């Protein structure tokens, strides 16, 4: 654990990518192989299960820290991270632990078989055994996600340097479901083939945005200048669903979401079509709600995603289907090296054979001759229930991760309204202790009605100014939420708008975010609920 705690500290102490890679390499070189795999699992989002729920951990931490509960909660709002809050509030310990990361995780896993009393005792004793930094990391293991400013690609880079295995191959080998208990470092670095793990997905190829923010709009001419001749590109609609990789191998089927979650059971409608695919097939596409062969908006799909039990009613109200746009493996062969056009032909071949055309939809290619023509077609995105257009270079292979060059997304501009900030709340992580999460309202007669929450889109300098305003213009405090004097006006952008019975305003927005601070607008000039509702019909 010492080495792992030190790894955290060292990574925190630098902002430089090369330095981070060096630190990761030093770590890999200094710990046993089992620790390497545990670290890799943690840094790629594979946390051990939590034997003690976080409410209980909180309660024990409050006991150990000897402060009132409300003060613990206030402290948490200041720190913005539960694991860190607990380690800061506990009395200092002169001890330090010599157990390895593997040993600690094994101990954590053992707690499953213990009683609540035994777990509590173990936890309090463990805290007493660890120094402040170790305790923080230990708390992270027990409670939090491991978002620590190190991307998976950096970890892979360090590992690639050490093992001499190329980064894309390593990225592939750490995809899918594995836990450090059943996947050894030896297995990782040994030569592998697809049959070793029939459920393993390929790393997703992600498109790069053509316009990085909605303010930097690009016209056809600029797109052409950046991408070259239009006939080198394949265009499709950018569907607004769940990106998924669908696998049929060895008679079994697997559906992976982009977050590397196995979601096979969440989409039973897709099973017949996948089972009918030839063995050794991997498809890449989008899962959407469909009705009468037409995609429905994402909000329909959303109603079933979170459900544990898919009732008949849900399946009837929100049936899903796929729009498939790529084929990564065919007849057991990894064909990612082939060109977009060749893979497309293979995909079309599979499509022609399917007996389930109502579930297996092919992503239609958009015919266009010039960038200007495509720009006009893009205007129809909302009507198509699409988010914009995808551009794929016809001669490009299927690559790993988000890369500039061969896959681009050209999204439509967001809808927007001017709204007044009325509530503010403190953020988390690097926004801890700053008022960064705001609720916005529009006018309904002479009343302001809240309609959206947004927490991103401002520069740090702007956030500091808004934070200063909030602290000096608080009307009321409700727990962590402050009601602020309605004065500041912001332009709020969003991707879509739907009716909602759960919200006071009667509407719900999709991906609301702050486009800009309208320092030029008095609050009286903010938009009205009627003008927002008018967008419902568009």
């Amino acid at each position: 654990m010492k080495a792992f705690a030190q790894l955290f500290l060292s990574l925190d102490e630098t902002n430089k990518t090369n330095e981070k890679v060096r630190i990761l390499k030093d770590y890999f070189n200094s710990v046993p192989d089992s620790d390497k795999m545990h670290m890799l699992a943690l840094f790629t989002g594979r946390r051990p299960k939590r034997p003690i729920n976080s409410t209980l951990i909180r309660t024990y931490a409050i006991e150990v820290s000897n402060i009132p509960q409300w003060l613990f909660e206030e402290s948490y709002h200041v720190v913005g991270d539960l694991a860190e809050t607990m380690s800061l509030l506990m009395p200092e310990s002169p001890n330090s632990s010599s157990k390895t990361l593997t040993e600690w995780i094994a101990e954590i896993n053992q707690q499953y078989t213990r009683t609540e009393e035994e777990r509590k005792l173990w936890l309090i004793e463990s805290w007493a055994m660890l120094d402040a930094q170790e305790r923080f990391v230990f708390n992270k293991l027990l409670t939090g996600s491991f978002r620590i400013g190190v991307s998976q690609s950096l970890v892979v880079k360090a590992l690639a340097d050490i093992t001499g295995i190329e980064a894309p191959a390593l990225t592939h080998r750490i995809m899918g479901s594995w836990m450090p208990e059943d996947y050894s470092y030896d297995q990782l670095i040994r030569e592998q083939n697809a049959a070793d793990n029939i459920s393993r997905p390929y790393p997703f190829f992600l498109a790069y945005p053509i316009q990085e923010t909605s303010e930097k709009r690009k016209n056809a001419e600029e797109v052409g200048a950046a991408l070259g001749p239009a006939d080198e590109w394949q265009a499709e609609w950018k569907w607004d669903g769940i990106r998924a990789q669908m696998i049929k191998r060895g008679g079994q089927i697997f559906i992976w979401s982009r977050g590397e979650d196995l979601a096979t059971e969440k989409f039973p409608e897709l099973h017949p079509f996948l089972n009918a695919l030839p063995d050794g097939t991997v498809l890449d596409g989008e899962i959407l709600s469909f009705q009468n062969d037409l995609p429905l908006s994402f909000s329909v799909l959303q109603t079933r995603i979170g459900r544990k039990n898919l009732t008949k009613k849900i399946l009837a109200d929100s049936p899903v289907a796929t729009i498939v746009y790529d084929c990564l493996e065919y007849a057991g062969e990894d064909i990612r090296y082939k060109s977009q056009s060749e893979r497309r032909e293979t995909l079309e071949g599979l499509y022609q054979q399917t007996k389930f055309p109502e579930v297996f939809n092919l992503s239609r290619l958009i015919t266009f001759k010039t960038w200007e023509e495509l720009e006009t077609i893009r205007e129809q995105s909302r009507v198509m229930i699409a988010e914009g257009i995808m551009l794929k270079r016809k001669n490009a292979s299927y690559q790993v991760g988000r890369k500039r060059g061969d896959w681009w997304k050209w999204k439509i501009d967001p809808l927007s309204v001017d709204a007044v900030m009325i509530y503010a709340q403190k953020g988390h992580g690097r926004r801890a202790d700053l008022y960064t999460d705001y609720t916005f309202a529009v006018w309904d007669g002479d009343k302001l009605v809240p309609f959206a929450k947004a927490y991103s889109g401002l520069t740090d300098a702007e956030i500091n100014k808004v934070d200063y305003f909030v602290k000096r213009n608080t009307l009321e405090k409700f727990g962590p939420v402050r009601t602020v004097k309605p004065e500041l006006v912001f332009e709020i952008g969003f991707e879509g708008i739907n009716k909602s019975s759960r919200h006071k305003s009667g509407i719900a927005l999709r991906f609301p975010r702050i486009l800009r601070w309208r320092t030029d607008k008095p609050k009286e000039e903010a938009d009205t609920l009627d003008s927002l509702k008018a967008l419902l019909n568009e």
Partner: protein
Amino acid sequence: MAKPLLEFTDRGIYCEQGRFYIDPWKPVDDAVITHAHADHAYIGHKNYLAHHLSREVMLYRLGDINLRTIEYGETVTKHGVKISMFPAGHVIGSAQIRVEYKGVVWVVSGDYKTDDDGISTPFEPVKCQHFISECTFGMPVYSWKPQSEIFTEVNNWWRTNVQNGVATVIVGYSLGKAQRILQNLDLSIGKVYTHGVIENTNEALRRNGVILNPTERITFESVKDEVRKGIIIAPPSSVGTPWMRKFGPYSFGYCSGWMAIRGAKRRRAADRGFIMSDHADWNGLVSAIDATGCESVYLTHGYTASFTRYLNEIGFNASEVHTLYGGEEEEAPVTEGEEKKETTPSGDEVKEEIVS
């Protein structure tokens, strides 16, 4: 009931009987100043009273003002009200203001810290009935380590940078942190260079008779390769500016109490965050307030709401008051690198979270 000796007005803390204000933020006739930081020593008053060691810095910062200075323990009487100053330990020349009239004693802390930094006169608790206190770091998550430990970290970091041929830039406020850093560096490692703003303050303090370690002001003639072997003390406003970038490659360390929180540290995008504050930590605040033996305590700036509630729960008679202090010299800058927009999570990323 008679009017309290000190009241909180929209100009600052006011003593009606003595007809003077303490740290007023709007122009007044008579101002008593706890220390020379900008959120306490405003421009525009007719007469100023401050500690002797604040003299040159105030003249440098506020220009040609009508300033009288006194020593710690010395008493000035205004309309029967006795005013005296006691060390606050915040920065050189910082004072708590003790005000006494007909046996009633109030103390205004200004900003203070209870640990001895080796350069400011150490904090002395002053008995009083009413204590007006800051609470910049009034949350239990703030707990400072001994200064010697922090400077061991600083000096080790500097030494490593010299070995790696990387310049060392350490950032701290020009009055207070800069001198504290200067006096605690291991000068066997190299020379200390200063940004002009800091050197101006150093010079003012030297004119005031304060003995500081030798420094060299950075000018156009400074040789980059020489500077790289030393350490540069720079103010927060210089972070990310072309001035700083010309010393690149550099490692930049930020000294502040806010560095105790990872999120705050990441926000400042410093290579190294050193947890070092000129304000009292949680335990320091509670013990300082306790040591005054006061009947009532007023909290002016910081985590006033939580800290007030806590003090009341443990038996003090505490209340929050609204002032314009704080947010000035502990406020962190926005570095140029941070000026970019936070990226909005794209639809794809949000969806990813929904599914899991």
